[in-house]
């Protein structure tokens, strides 16, 4: 190896079992020099970072999805297999594989190592969480083990950044030695070969690893409580309650502050610039467009903070265990629990999180029902309509009637998600769900830096992905709502004369049976960009102080113009309606087809119409017209 090739950065790929601390090691190696994108053509997340060795050699590090085997079953595992084999389109084969192993749990990874050896690429084994292994009195004969598996071993503690220089040094030595991959002899192992490999792994383990003197008893004790059939579920519900309290009370406060900031900025610009189209474009199009994305950032960050914290602690697998039968009754996989939970903040990260589900049908079912979970964008609409039409009364002395309706709307969302999934699995895909096989990792205290880094990463991904879709949509909706402008001498608000206004008038007859007037339809059109925009649009249509979105005033106006039946029908509509173009866009990207966004749009629209129809007609019959 000389000349130009020696100067090119060496490429390494991290591969290992889930829960081996692979991502922590990736973070320890690369620090903030990392970049998240997607692999070409698939929706698997690609994490790459840079590290510079002590001698100044640049090394690029690829963090591959965790796997137990090269026999890929999910899109994530296909990426891992193809990257390891050097067959991934648009990716160069790694120079060195770094196999990351949890030092306290070596049996399964040893079998993976034997598979990786067959690939024939130079490899380093990183025995991670080595401090825990030492604390447990686990004795590993490193030299013997290295001889046996035929590759150098480095001990690391990723969370304390121990062993990182060693690891980089080993990689560099392998690259400098000009070690090149042999011809890959890997092929999918049959059952008998998996057994043989296990036997071999068992033999190696017996020869070079002495079982721990002080095995982890903490995990067993905690599990006795957290996995208890009754106490475990109560604790899970308690945790969810705390999570949503945090998301909706802290997150909303910060989000409202940001929202106020954007309103103030819009007001400032409106005051500085002359009244006209440009000003309207800047304030109503650009600033409120950007603002409508950013106000959700605090809630997304708080939600992901909890999810990542629980994940790192090892609780998420327990949550999936506790929920599996309940979800399974509706035809969902236990792992769908986490994506559906995320969908309470926003369906977009929720749908992105369905990647943890191996089977395509399980995953599609989860994607289809995710938008039925009440996302935070519905809250402004719910709050407005509830405060306008539901009296704030105490029931039975301690239950606030408005809160009860809010709870009912959430419950309706969850119930309908389970029902839709149930019907999908019974009527359309009459197969059983995938096998549910999941490791319950040992509990670990989460590392603050790792949690912070991963939360920020999620925030960044949300901003770029949601921002790039929502922003152009907001511009499109602004165009629809502003062109053509009002004719001279017009009396009503300008939006009545625009394309959106005309559409509203045109399709209103179809909405008469559910009690919607044309103003509501006009407001729903911009509301398609993002649900909460409907609130501002209602303000525009009813010409409640332009630019001012004071909810109290708007609520008062709505109560004058709408019957109670109409208000309730509007709430029912909002539980189901596919009022979010960004979600449909994400579904298109995740499924790589317009079919599924189409299916989603159609079924949600149908459910929304039927729900609003039933609500309206019953309310009329009860005299709320």
């Amino acid at each position, binding site marked *: 190896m000389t000349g130009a090739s020696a100067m090119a950065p060496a490429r390494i790929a991290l591969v290992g079992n889930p829960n081996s601390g692979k991502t922590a090691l990736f973070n320890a190696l690369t620090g903030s020099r990392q970049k998240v994108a997607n692999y070409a053509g698939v929706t698997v997340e690609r994490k790459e970072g840079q590290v510079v060795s002590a001698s100044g050699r640049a090394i690029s590090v690829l963090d591959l999805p965790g796997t*137990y*085997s090269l*026999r890929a*079953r999910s899109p994530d595992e296909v990426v891992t297999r193809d990257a390891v084999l050097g067959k991934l389109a648009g990716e160069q084969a790694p120079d060195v594989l770094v196999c990351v192993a949890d030092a*306290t*749990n070596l*049996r*399964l990874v040893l*079998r993976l190592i034997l598979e990786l050896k067959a690939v024939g690429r130079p490899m380093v084994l990183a025995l991670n969480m080595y401090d825990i292994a030492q604390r447990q009195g686990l004795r590993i004969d490193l030299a013997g083990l290295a001889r046996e598996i035929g590759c150098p071993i480095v001990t690391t503690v990723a969370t304390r950044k121990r062993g990182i220089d060693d690891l980089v040094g080993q990689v560099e030595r392998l690259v400098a030695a000009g070690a090149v991959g042999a011809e890959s002899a890997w092929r999918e*192992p*049959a*059952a008998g070969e*998996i*057994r043989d490999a*296990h*036997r071999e792994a*068992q033999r190696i383990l017996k020869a070079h690893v002495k*079982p721990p003197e002080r*095995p982890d008893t903490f*995990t*067993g004790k905690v*599990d*006795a409580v957290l*996995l*208890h*059939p*009754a106490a*475990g*579920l109560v604790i899970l519900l308690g945790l969810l309650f705390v999570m949503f309290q945090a998301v909706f009370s802290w997150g909303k406060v910060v989000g409202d502050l940001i929202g106020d900031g954007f309103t103030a900025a819009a007001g400032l610009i409106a005051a500085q610039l002359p009244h006209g189209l440009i000003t309207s474009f800047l304030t109503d199009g650009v600033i409120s467009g950007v603002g409508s994305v950013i106000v959700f950032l605090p809630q997304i960050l708080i939600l992901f903070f909890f999810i990542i914290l629980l994940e790192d602690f090892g609780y998420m*697998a327990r949550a*999936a*265990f*506790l929920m*599996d*039968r*309940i979800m*399974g*009754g509706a035809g969902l996989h*236990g792992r769908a629990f986490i994506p559906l939970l995320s969908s309470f903040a926003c369906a977009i990260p929720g749908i992105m999180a369905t990647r943890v589900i191996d*089977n395509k049908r*399980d995953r599609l079912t989860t994607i289809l029902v995710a938008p039925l979970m009440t996302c935070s964008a519905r809250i402004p609409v719910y709050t407005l309509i509830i405060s306008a039409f539901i009296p704030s009364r105490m029931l039975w002395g301690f239950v606030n009637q408005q809160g009860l309706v809010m709870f009912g709307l959430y419950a309706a969302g969850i119930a309908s998600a389970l029902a839709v999934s149930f019907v999908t699995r019974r009527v359309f895909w*009459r*197969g*059983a*769900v*995938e*096998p*549910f*096989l*999941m*490791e*319950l*990792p*040992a509990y670990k205290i989460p590392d603050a830096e790792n949690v912070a880094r991963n939360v920020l990463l999620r925030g960044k991904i949300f901003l770029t992905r949601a921002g790039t879709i929502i922003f152009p949509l907001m511009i499109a909706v602004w165009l629809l709502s502003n062109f053509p402008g009002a004719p001279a001498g017009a009396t009503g608000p300008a939006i009545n004369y625009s394309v959106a206004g005309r559409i509203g008038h045109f399709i209103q007859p179809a909405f008469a049976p559910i009690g919607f007037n044309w103003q509501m339809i006009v407001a729903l059109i911009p509301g398609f960009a993002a649900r909460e925009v409907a609130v501002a649009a209602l303000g525009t249509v009813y010409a409640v102080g332009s630019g001012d979105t004071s909810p109290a005033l708007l609520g008062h106006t709505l109560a004058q113009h709408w019957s109670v039946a109409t208000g309730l029908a509007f709430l029912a509509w909002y539980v189901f309606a596919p009022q979010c173009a960004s979600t449909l866009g994400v579904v298109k990207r995740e499924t790589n087809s317009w079919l599924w966004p189409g299916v989603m749009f159609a079924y949600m629209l149908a459910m929304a119409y039927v729900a609003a129809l039933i609500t309206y007609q019953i309310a009329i019959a009860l005299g709320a017209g």
Partner: protein
Amino acid sequence: MHDMVPDVTARPPAQAEGRLVRLSAARPGDRGVILEVRAEAHPSPARSRAGAPLASRSARKGGGTDHGVDVHELQRRLLEFGFVEGARIEVLHEGAIRRDPIAIRLDEMRVALRRRDAEDVWVLLDK
């Protein structure tokens, strides 16, 4: 308390010691060694007693299993996860609804799985 135990797993513990059972029928506290991991399509006796929905579902597939993947794929996944002959097993916990899924200790690992996916794992319980 005892009549809440569903048929699926009802089994007096005393008789079971030293016996060969499917992992799908094991209860918390049961420990033993995996004797065999099979790849069989069968409506197990346990399943056919488990009530109409499950029975009719397996009947629909011509008496086959209902794992979402074929039995050989299921067997390979079980093997890859460490369910291999000779591995030590202890059932630790079970879910609240129909005692499903189960959490087990498999050698040094803790694993969760559904009972219906554990039917082909045969365990020789300790005496």
